């Protein structure tokens, strides 16, 4: 007598795939719900701005350092951003040694893409003197723990870190011979803050079976063959779109996923803005949670 039993993995796969049409996922969320997000800014003291985001088991740390550099030749009146992503070996054993480099480059390239337009960050505020000096913001992303949905968490952390960034105010003094001198203001609190109103956030929609879900866990990502990554601002303007994964997508699915991305993105931005403003209003006396909380 032969009996066939579906292994553990097989059962889990079928729960994950059969749930979304009923708007039910393994952890009880709906298809468009995010996991609980914790955001904390100003966690690293020797940066110009920093933020830490915990999205379920995904943990991201972003630090922004503002340094003076020369503007790019084709954009002499603007500063610029440089992104670097480090996939730490703590996140998952696959990142040991050079393993995380490919993923790090992919994420960095995606970040360059989503910020590659005039409206995301007002780069003119980063200019000190045209063609000679400008502020360069080095955004360093550190992946501490990988629990699925990396792109979304990273984009939230980058937005929070840019919100937290304060760039010292400088003045350019020119003396009689024409040589320029840059003077830093005496007051350490005299800074420029960046406006992050138009900074986009990434929403990744994973296609599972016939439906798509937002904020997939690692197990859900393993069951999904293709995802659509949409980078959307708080006003609903899309700055980047990318299909990720080995599978293909139906054109109708793509249009549905784009609509969902826009809807979810708006809600995400609204709640992120309110949390960031609330945290800032607590002032320097607020209780810092840091890494032990």
């Amino acid at each position, binding site marked *: 007598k032969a009996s066939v039993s579906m292994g553990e993995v097989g059962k889990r796969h079928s729960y994950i795939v059969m749930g979304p049409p009923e708007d039910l996922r393994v952890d009880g969320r709906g298809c468009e719900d995010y996991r609980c997000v914790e955001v904390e800014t100003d966690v690293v003291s020797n940066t110009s701005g920093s933020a830490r985001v915990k999205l379920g088991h995904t943990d991201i740390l972003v630090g922004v350092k503002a340094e003076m550099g020369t503007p790019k030749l084709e954009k002499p009146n603007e500063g610029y951003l440089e992104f670097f992503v480090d996939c730490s070996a703590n996140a998952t054993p696959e990142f040991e040694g050079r393993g995380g480099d490919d993923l790090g480059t992919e994420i960095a390239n995606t970040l360059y893409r989503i910020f590659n*337009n*005039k409206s995301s960050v007002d780069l003119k505020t980063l200019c000190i003197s045209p063609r000679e000096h400008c502020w360069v913001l080095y955004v360093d992303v550190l992946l501490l723990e990988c629990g699925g949905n990396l792109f979304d968490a990273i984009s939230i952390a980058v937005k929070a870190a840019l919100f937290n960034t304060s760039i010292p105010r400088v003045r350019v003094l020119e003396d009689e011979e024409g040589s320029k001198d840059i003077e830093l203001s005496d007051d350490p609190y005299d800074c420029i803050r960046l406006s992050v109103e138009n900074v986009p956030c990434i929403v990744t929609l994973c296609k599972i079976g016939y439906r798509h879900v937002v904020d997939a866990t690692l197990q859900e990502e393993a069951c999904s063959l293709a995802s659509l990554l949409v980078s959307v601002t708080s006003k609903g303007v*899309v700055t*980047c*779109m990318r*299909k990720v994964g*080995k*599978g*293909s997508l139906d054109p109708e699915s793509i249009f549905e996923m784009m609509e969902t991305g*826009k809807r979810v993105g708006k809600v995400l931005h609204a709640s992120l803005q309110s949390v960031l403003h609330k945290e800032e209003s607590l002032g320097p006396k607020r209780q810092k949670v840091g890494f032990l909380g």
Partner: protein
Amino acid sequence: MPGDHRRIRGPEESQPPQLYAAAEEEGPAARDPTRLRPVYARAGLLSQAKGSAYLEAGGTKVLCAVSGPRQAEGGERGGGPAGSGGEPPGGGEERELALALQEALEPAVRLGRYPRAQLEVSALLLEDGGSALAAALTAAALALADAGVEMYDLVVGCGLSLAPEPAGTWLLDPTRLEEERAAAGLTVALMPVLNQVAGLLGSGEGGLIESWAEAVRLGLEGCQRLYPVLQQSLVRAARRRGAAAQP
């Protein structure tokens, strides 16, 4: 980025001549937003590669070669790096385009038939006259088909760009000039018979979701229109092979 030590270093204070160039000439002429440039596609032209294809559309010329399947170093997935030469700078952009190529070609290839094997696809961009990634995608799919790799369907790529204000319309198959002045760009890759989107990559200030949706639709239509040309080129290549094998 590693420095280019083979080039002669200029003086410390040099400036590129473009900074002092006279005001730019008129923008590209207005044209029908749905026009596709005439395409020349030829499969099976490199003797040393398992499969190869050459695609020319307007000023864009791409040559693609496929080798393998050979034993993969670790990992069971088929696939492989694509390198693109020609004008684009630096490793970063090439890596990104290589990844885009891989992600668009994987859905079309029956990777299950090549366990523990690796297929290498290398695309050489001889000249970038606009929509380079789309042309590379199409050439790569043709080369894979020419190599006899088992596939579900061909992959056809199409580029689009959004003309800047005030026109603000999406243009199909842009030229280099149109791409440079564009506010946003998009490349779509479609498997025409299955009607499945194999790849999508776009960025810029495209505006609202509806605008991007319209662009995707336009791109998919363009891909469908290109398909017969590619079918013919594969049939011709097969006939040529047959004729060469006969005597």
